[in-house]
């Protein structure tokens, strides 16, 4: 088994601020993902990465940067936080590349922008 850790658990920011969220996995999975969930909605893909230093845009990449520093970690940066924004950011990982594999999710980071 393995685990996905997301830090911080709660993030409060100011309008215009640059904010960074971190994700670590010890599954030794190749592919990692960042999703955003708005209240009462499904998840939407922001970025994913199939290997270290790789980056692929999802449907919601505008306003975000991401970095896959090493196989086990994937960070997401909100480049300029929007006032009154509230969302949960969920990190996931899956074992392989070049195909579809089961994804496992972390517990999420809850963002509130004042």
């Amino acid at each position, binding site marked *: 088994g393995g685990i996905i850790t997301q830090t911080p658990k709660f993030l409060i920011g100011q309008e215009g601020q640059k904010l960074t969220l971190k994700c670590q996995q010890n599954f030794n999975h190749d592919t990692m993902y960042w*999703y955003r969930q708005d209240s009462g909605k499904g998840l939407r893909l922001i970025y994913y990465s199939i290997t270290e230093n790789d980056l692929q845009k999802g449907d919601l990449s505008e306003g975000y940067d991401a970095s896959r520093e090493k196989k086990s970690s994937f960070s997401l940066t909100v480049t300029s936080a929007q006032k009154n924004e509230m969302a949960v950011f969920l990190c996931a990982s899956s074992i392989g590349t070049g195909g579809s*594999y089961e994804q496992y999710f972390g517990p999420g980071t*809850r963002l509130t922008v004042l």
Partner: protein
Amino acid sequence: GDKVKQSPSALSLQEGTNSALRCNFSIAATTVQWFLQNPRGSLINLFYLVPGTKENGRLKSAFDSKESYSTLHIRDAQLEDSGTYFCAAEGNYAQGLTFGLGTRVSVFP
């Protein structure tokens, strides 16, 4: 939510009864995952499906890629089955999951 449509959007079940949730896909899905999101927000993996069926305890799921739909059956509903159920689909390559909007299930005594 348009590419993956879940129905119903909400469901109220008496303990001990059975029910079915459905997802229809307008994308070329090759695999489907079903999750339960608990009140704390954690996503619990229920099923990972290629075309076919799987069963786990009181839950059973099916995925028909030709007809582009998947179902999740809950048998003998229990209070701990309450939460929001999401289906999500992926195509041939690891490009991320496309999620439905979820079905909120409430089980009452």
